[in-house]
């Protein structure tokens, strides 16, 4: 996926919104900047399929050599799919953060979270300030 077509949370998760027959879906992952900052990832605990998540609340944990970090759900909804290949191939997060490195797919039940998301340009400005 092209980063310019994605939306970003201030906590560094990216979202691709798609409309399908069954409703609106958010595929999400972790930005390239965040993966670089975390460095030396050793573990990811994926959310369970079927779990209800709430925008801006933790839904997934990544463990690096140095620290453990929460990932925050960028939207509210139900987890309908997770990328099962990730735990055994964490390098995918770095090699293809916006494609093969996707983490989960959520059926959006509430649009409220969407207003907090920003486009890539705005997100990049935030990264420059943090970096």
């Amino acid at each position, binding site marked *: 996926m092209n980063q310019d077509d994605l939306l970003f949370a201030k906590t560094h998760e990216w979202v691709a919104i798609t409309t399908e027959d069954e409703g609106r879906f958010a595929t999400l992952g972790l930005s390239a900047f965040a993966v670089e*900052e*975390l460095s*030396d990832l050793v*573990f990811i605990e994926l959310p369970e399929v079927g779990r209800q998540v709430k925008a801006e609340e933790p839904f997934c944990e990544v463990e*690096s*050599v140095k620290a*453990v*970090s929460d*990932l925050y759900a960028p939207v509210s909804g139900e987890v309908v799919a997770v990328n099962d290949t990730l735990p055994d191939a964490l390098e995918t997060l770095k090699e293809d953060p916006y494609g093969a490195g996707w983490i989960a797919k959520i059926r959006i039940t509430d649009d409220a979270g969407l207003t907090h998301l920003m486009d890539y340009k705005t997100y990049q400005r935030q990264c420059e300030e943090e970096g």
Partner: protein
Amino acid sequence: MTVPQKTKPSDLARTALHDWHVAHGGRMVDFGGWSMPMQYSTILQEHQTTRTAVGLFDVSHMGRLHFHGPDVGRFLDSLLTRRVVDMHAGQIRYSLICNQQGGILDDVLVYRLETPGSQATPHSSSTPRSPDPSFQMVVNASNRTKILDWLTRQKADYDVQFHDVTHATTMIAVQGPLAISLVDPLLDCDLPALRYYRGKRTRFAQWSCYVSRTGYTGEDGCELIVAATDGPPVWESILRHGAERATGKGGIAAPIGLAARDTLRLEAAMPLYGHELTEQTNPIQAGLGFALNLQNRQFVGHEALMNFQAENHQPLRIGLQLDGKRVPREGYTILHAGQPVGEVTSGTYSPTFERPIAMGYVKQSAGAPGTTLQIDIRGKLHRAVVVPLPFYQRGLLSARKSLGNRHP
């Protein structure tokens, strides 16, 4: 996720190598009031470079204090858990500084320096003691001000002078199995002949240099102290010689940040002040009995330590090994049969053993090697086994596996 706070460089002290770190991709963070590199490449890569070749560490943030004067030996002996007055020039000792309650104020290295003009050698024990011996002490960065204040308060009538040479000097640790052979040709002394925990003044090219066979990684190696302004050329010279001794792609030496310094010292089970050591812990429970001389001595904390030794029921420092990938972090609760028995003080994913390891303090009844404990990792109990320390000892691992570049 939340990105760790980067340093606001203006508020922090800088080593003479600061600009080099920034120019070479060092991620700078606040460490004990200093702007220091956390890492340059990846932690795993830097860790393995040190375990298999040579790692270069800027440790200039460590406090370096010099002592001299007629009473210097007696003064230091009144504060240190280990006797130093009997040290010969060139000897180095690990010691602790305790408060009256036996709590640890800092863990330090004490160096008996060569006294200018007297050519005492480590072997000539009959050499008359110089009238004015001099010592160096290396203290933790975060404790430097506290220790300077403590020394000033304890000085009383001792005829001794001390001064802080931290900012005037650069200290570089060169660590790894190839460290000695890399640095030896650059020094005007026989480095392989220098024994562990010995030091001497020599020259590195045209620069005056104090070299010691010391380190904080569990590997062989040395540490160099030069004038602050000589730091960058000495640092670059070592890297250049490392590059010339190439093994395939790239050289044998690389700069290493604080993150890998932490994983290296943790595998070697070396305690870190602020984690395993605090003013609330005493040397006996920390497993540092080797750094105590209690017989026929008086020093601050002596009485308290005698008491701790007599009735030793304090929680003990232990090592823990876990399966899986979840890493116990500082402050996590340790349980035995469902009951809390202690806390983790440091934990990491061990790059060498490819599993989580931790150190912590537990009740003595739960601390025997082989005991199965649990650690509460973010609400879930994970099985952890008490193992003897250190986790890593150089030489013992090489037969098990060679550490190739297996990580992304």
